[in-house]
């Protein structure tokens, strides 16, 4: 197996574990957004465990790379990778959306070190990313800025203000080639399919016409994600926009491509089934699997105990 192949196996395992945590968190919270969290998790895993320079013990390190999750409603995915990276203990994940928890329903920079900006009011993150990338360049830092947008999100007008500005901002001395923007193109928004609400197409041509370098990838193919991030990192003179085609609810059959699962938490039985599917275990083999995997057994028991509450 090649080095990149080995890395993909490692990342795949992390992404799978994070998917399980997303389901667990949402089941505990009783609300939240599973569909978009599951569509973006391979991207976030690739960023956190193979790309960004950061130090979970020093979240305010000035030269850290920054990630802005502009589609803030999918923050369970971000919490999952942050916990796995060591920003806070994994046990805290189940406090999501609970009173007093730093794991707010949408990202709160002041509550949780490592969150770079408050997002969740869609359309704002890209502008912040522009300013950050510019500020880092002005300060002589080599840090990079990553910004993840939702597909429905780019219906917001502010995104297009930022899209028009980004290739020009800082030129000629401080072009924003330290900025990579990734579109989590899962084709579904709250009310319905994006094509039915307000189609984005031709999305690649639009961003190209605004002056961006645009790449198009499968947002669940870890090899393609890595290659795109490499290419974006090597691009000089301006920012890069990566259109990542994804599947909403990816990894859970009954959530995939269903607008109903944009913003609904799984009930206990659904959560357990989702976890079984994420782990790739058939229904017939499930009890035997649990007998050999005490951690998953404990998780299933934990979720069952929620039902009794």
């Amino acid at each position, binding site marked *: 197996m090649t080095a990149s192949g080995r890395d993909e196996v490692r990342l795949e395992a992390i992404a799978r574990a994070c998917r399980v945590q997303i389901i667990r968190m949402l089941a505990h919270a009783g609300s939240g957004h599973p569909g978009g969290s599951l569509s973006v998790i391979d991207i976030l895993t690739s960023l956190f465990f193979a790309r960004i320079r950061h130090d979970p013990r020093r979240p305010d390190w*000035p030269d850290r790379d*920054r990630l802005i999750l502009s589609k803030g409603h999918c923050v369970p995915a971000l919490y999952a990778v942050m916990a796995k990276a060591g920003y806070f203990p994994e046990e805290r994940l189940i406090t999501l959306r609970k009173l007093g928890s730093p794991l707010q329903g949408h990202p*709160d*920079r*002041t509550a949780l070190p490592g969150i*770079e*900006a*408050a*997002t*969740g*009011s869609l*359309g*704002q993150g*890209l*502008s*912040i*990313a*522009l*300013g*950050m*990338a*510019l*500020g*880092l360049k*002005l*300060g002589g*830092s080599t840090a990079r800025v990553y910004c993840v947008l939702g597909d429905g999100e780019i219906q917001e*007008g*502010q995104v297009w*203000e*930022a899209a*028009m*500005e980004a290739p020009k*901002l*800082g030129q000629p*001395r401080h072009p924003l080639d330290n900025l990579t923007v990734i579109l989590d193109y899962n084709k579904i928004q709250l009310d319905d399919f994006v094509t039915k609400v307000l189609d984005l197409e031709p999305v690649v041509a639009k961003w190209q016409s605004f002056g961006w370098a645009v790449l198009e990838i499968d947002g669940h193919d870890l090899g393609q994600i890595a290659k795109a991030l490499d290419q974006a990192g090597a691009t000089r003179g301006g920012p890069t926009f990566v259109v990542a085609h994804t599947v909403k609810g990816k990894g859970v059959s009954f959530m995939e491509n269903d607008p109903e699962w944009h913003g609904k938490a799984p009930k206990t039985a659904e959560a357990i089934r989702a976890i079984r599917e994420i782990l790739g275990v058939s229904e017939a083999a499930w009890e035997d699997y649990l007998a050999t995997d005490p951690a998953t057994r404990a998780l299933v028991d934990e979720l069952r105990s929620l039902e009794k509450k």
Partner: protein
Amino acid sequence: MTAKASRAAFGEALVELGARDERIVTVDADLSKSTMTAKFAKTHPDRAFNVGIAESNMIGIGAGLALAGKIPFVCSFACFVVGRFETIRISVAYTNANVKIVGTHAGIAIGEDGYSQMGLEDIACIRALPNIPIIQPADELETRQVVAYAVEHQGPLYLRLTRQNLEPVCPPDYRFRLGHWLVLRPGQDVTLIGSGGPLANCLTAARMLEADGISAEVIDAATIKPLDEDLLLRSAGKTGHVITVEDHGISGGLGGAVAELLSEVLPTPLRRLGVQGFGESGEAKGLYAKHGLDPAGIAKSVTKFLSR
């Protein structure tokens, strides 16, 4: 000092402060000639960014710059910048980004351009956010000090400036402090709390009232949020009558803030002078007279108020 618009004093102060502090940057939305940051752009071209007519993006870029360690001044007309309230609310306030939001062309005193260009609800909007102080200087001296303070202040801040020239009102030894008002003229019978544009008219009104035997205390409320509660309560307790005077809509501005405090802590007869309804085109003086913000109008309101 002679009369000068607070936007002009702001533009000059920023050039000087920018020469001493590399962190200061400006972000404009095609109004830098009007907000007076054009001077900064000329002196410090590498640190001035004009992002086109896109105020939401301007505010967001400001937030990002602040999060990367810069001290950004994001500038437009008060109505246009605060009109992008949701971006201020999340990208600046909730994020607690160290952004200095500058709204010029405050109030009906901009005159001829009419209502769509008048900042008349900006104080009300920003007041609703938990962590953004609101400062409105009343003359050149105060503006220079306020801009220097804004650079030092950690966290977001809203600076409200005028298009029109402002007569000097502060004494030469005046030192601005956040949340501290200044008694410009002591008095016994009524407290006139003014801020920004109409403050000089309050002083003129006080002189007119003196001739009628009414002693008016005039206070410069440069900080609209937080209020100088001590000074306000002390003065209100002494005179027993409070009138607020501002070039802002009658709801939610300085008058609203004063009313909230007094009604809870020290119920005191209060009149709020400000702009009723929408603004309109016209000469600034005529507009002030129409809304009772000119010296005669203020004096008349005081007389009527005291003779109830």
